[in-house]
């Protein structure tokens, strides 16, 4: 391999092998700290030695062997550990897995990092570090937290895993659906933060985070290809990511789904998402919420023009979603679709019924503002845009709302195409920050 390829080969090895190395070491030494540190040292050695020695024929094996050696060195250095180390080992069952079960240490690693006994922010940080291989400064930057605070969060989580004996194990079949949904919530939170950043201090869309979430979800899908919700989340993510280039205008405001240049959508990602959705339909198993959300996105991305959108199917899918997740956010998104099917007046009545529960949510006001605009109730629409802007945190979203409000004054009222403020939505990753997926 030529010298030019070395940095690329190193990056690729990091992307492909990090989780495998950490997972194998965790299993062998029963300690997340040792595994993480030894893996980091092995990758540092690769960066140092590969340019001179050349990339080894099997980089994964080289890294695993090197990391094992580093771990043993460290344990020898701290030989006081001895028996105590044995005692503190993570518990995992060495019983043979039932036939057909997936036995991959990376899956154990994922379930341990996303254990429900850990706080959500700790699960996210730990998963990005141990499974994703992001460095501490990268994770700290991703969530706008001081590096020291992020380090502490991860250290505390690892200490709890050890002290409370959170096992290194894939949950039993009985617990699997619930635990898997906890894992998916972590991945979806990372994706959502990238999809529509919460704060004003970053870019409105953060492709590094959406890419990382997709990469981890792809890994999970490869490990458990038969799990419908994993496939559903992956489909949802790629169908959303496919629209990224069309979602922000050159001047930096969000472009709603109905105004997007659909030629800018990523055809390969759309094809992948549609294929995943078709596979789930063919499986003929009652879908969970991620699969329904993926299906909604598949309907949107099937329309080459917004006017070709099959709204009755979208409303039907939202009805299905509401049965699985009777949250007001789902009801709000259903109302947005309903406006296209039955008109803004019907939709407004549905939206107004949600005020008790959604008055603090910017998208509630943005939706009302748009429906009122379409009904020609301009002053009320303006007031609703103001309420939405006061609550929105994302810069591109604020810019979008400002533009829409300012257009109220001088645009003819009627025949403007409907604004679809964003579509499917869910996930409430922050206490009061209900989030929506769409646009």
């Amino acid at each position, binding site marked *: 391999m030529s010298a030019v390829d070395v940095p690329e080969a190193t990056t690729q090895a990091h992307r492909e092998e990090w989780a495998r190395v950490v997972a194998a070491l965790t299993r062998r030494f029963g300690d997340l700290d040792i595994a993480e540190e030894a893996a980091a040292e092995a990758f540092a050695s690769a960066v140092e030695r590969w340019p001179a020695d050349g990339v080894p024929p099997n980089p994964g094996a080289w890294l695993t062997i090197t990391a094992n050696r580093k771990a043993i060195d460290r344990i020898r250095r701290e030989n006081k550990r001895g028996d105590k180390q044995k005692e503190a080992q993570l518990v995992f069952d060495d019983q043979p897995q039932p036939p057909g079960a997936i036995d991959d240490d990376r899956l154990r690693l994922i379930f341990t990092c996303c*254990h429900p006994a850990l706080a959500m922010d700790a699960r996210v940080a730990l998963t990005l570090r141990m499974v994703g291989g992001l460095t501490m400064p990268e994770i700290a930057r991703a969530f706008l937290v001081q590096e020291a605070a992020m380090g502490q969060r991860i250290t505390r989580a690892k200490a709890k895993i050890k002290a*409370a*004996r959170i*096992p290194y194990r894939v949950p039993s079949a009985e*617990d699997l659906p619930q635990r898997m949904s906890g894992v998916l919530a972590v991945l979806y939170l990372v994706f959502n933060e990238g999809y529509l950043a919460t704060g004003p201090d970053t870019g409105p869309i953060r492709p590094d985070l959406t890419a990382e979430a997709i990469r981890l979800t792809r890994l999970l899908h490869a490990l458990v290809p038969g799990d419908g919700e994993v496939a559903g989340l992956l489909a949802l993510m790629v169908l959303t990511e496919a629209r990224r280039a069309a979602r922000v205008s050159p001047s930096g405001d969000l472009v709603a789904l109905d105004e997007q240049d659909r030629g800018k959508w990523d055809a390969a990602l759309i094809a992948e998402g549609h294929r995943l959705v078709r596979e789930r339909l063919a499986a003929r198993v009652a879908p969970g919420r991620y699969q329904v959300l993926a299906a909604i996105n598949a309907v949107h991305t099937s329309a080459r023009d917004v006017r070709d959108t099959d709204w009755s199917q979208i409303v039907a899918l939202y009805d299905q979603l509401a049965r699985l997740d009777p949250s007001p956010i789902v009801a709000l998104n259903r109302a947005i679709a309903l406006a296209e099917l039955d008109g803004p007046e019907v939709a407004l009545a549905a939206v107004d019924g949600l005020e008790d529960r959604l008055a603090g949510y910017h998208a509630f006001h943005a939706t009302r503002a748009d429906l009122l605009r379409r009904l020609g109730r301009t002053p009320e629409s303006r007031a609703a845009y103001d309420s939405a802007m006061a609550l929105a945190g994302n810069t591109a979203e604020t810019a979008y709302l400002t533009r829409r409000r300012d257009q109220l004054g001088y645009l003819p009222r009627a025949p403007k195409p409907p604004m679809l403020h964003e579509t499917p939505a869910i996930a409430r990753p922050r206490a009061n920050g209900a989030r929506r997926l769409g646009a």
Partner: protein
Amino acid sequence: MQYLVSVIDDGAGLATDSEAVAIDAFNDRLKADGHWVFAGGLGLPSTATVIDSRGAEAIITDGPFIESKEYLIGFWIIEAADLDVALKLAADGSKQCNRKVEVRPFL
């Protein structure tokens, strides 16, 4: 590995008769499955006495060391292989005694 399962009460007070029956049955299951170490119910916080003997003489104070809406009303000490096992048992215990519980590992 042993875990302390603390039973947290927020005003319901002592266990009712039907709760006591359910707790007894749960205790029997813990014993049969080898998870039982110890368990006990406590009097209300108003029956507590705090004593601080770090100084020259012991100072006795009436009442709990911390006044709060939620307080400890009982506990189990269980033997479990790992936290997943402990959480499962604690979930059953919470249901039977009709109160929330906290699970904490012994060192």
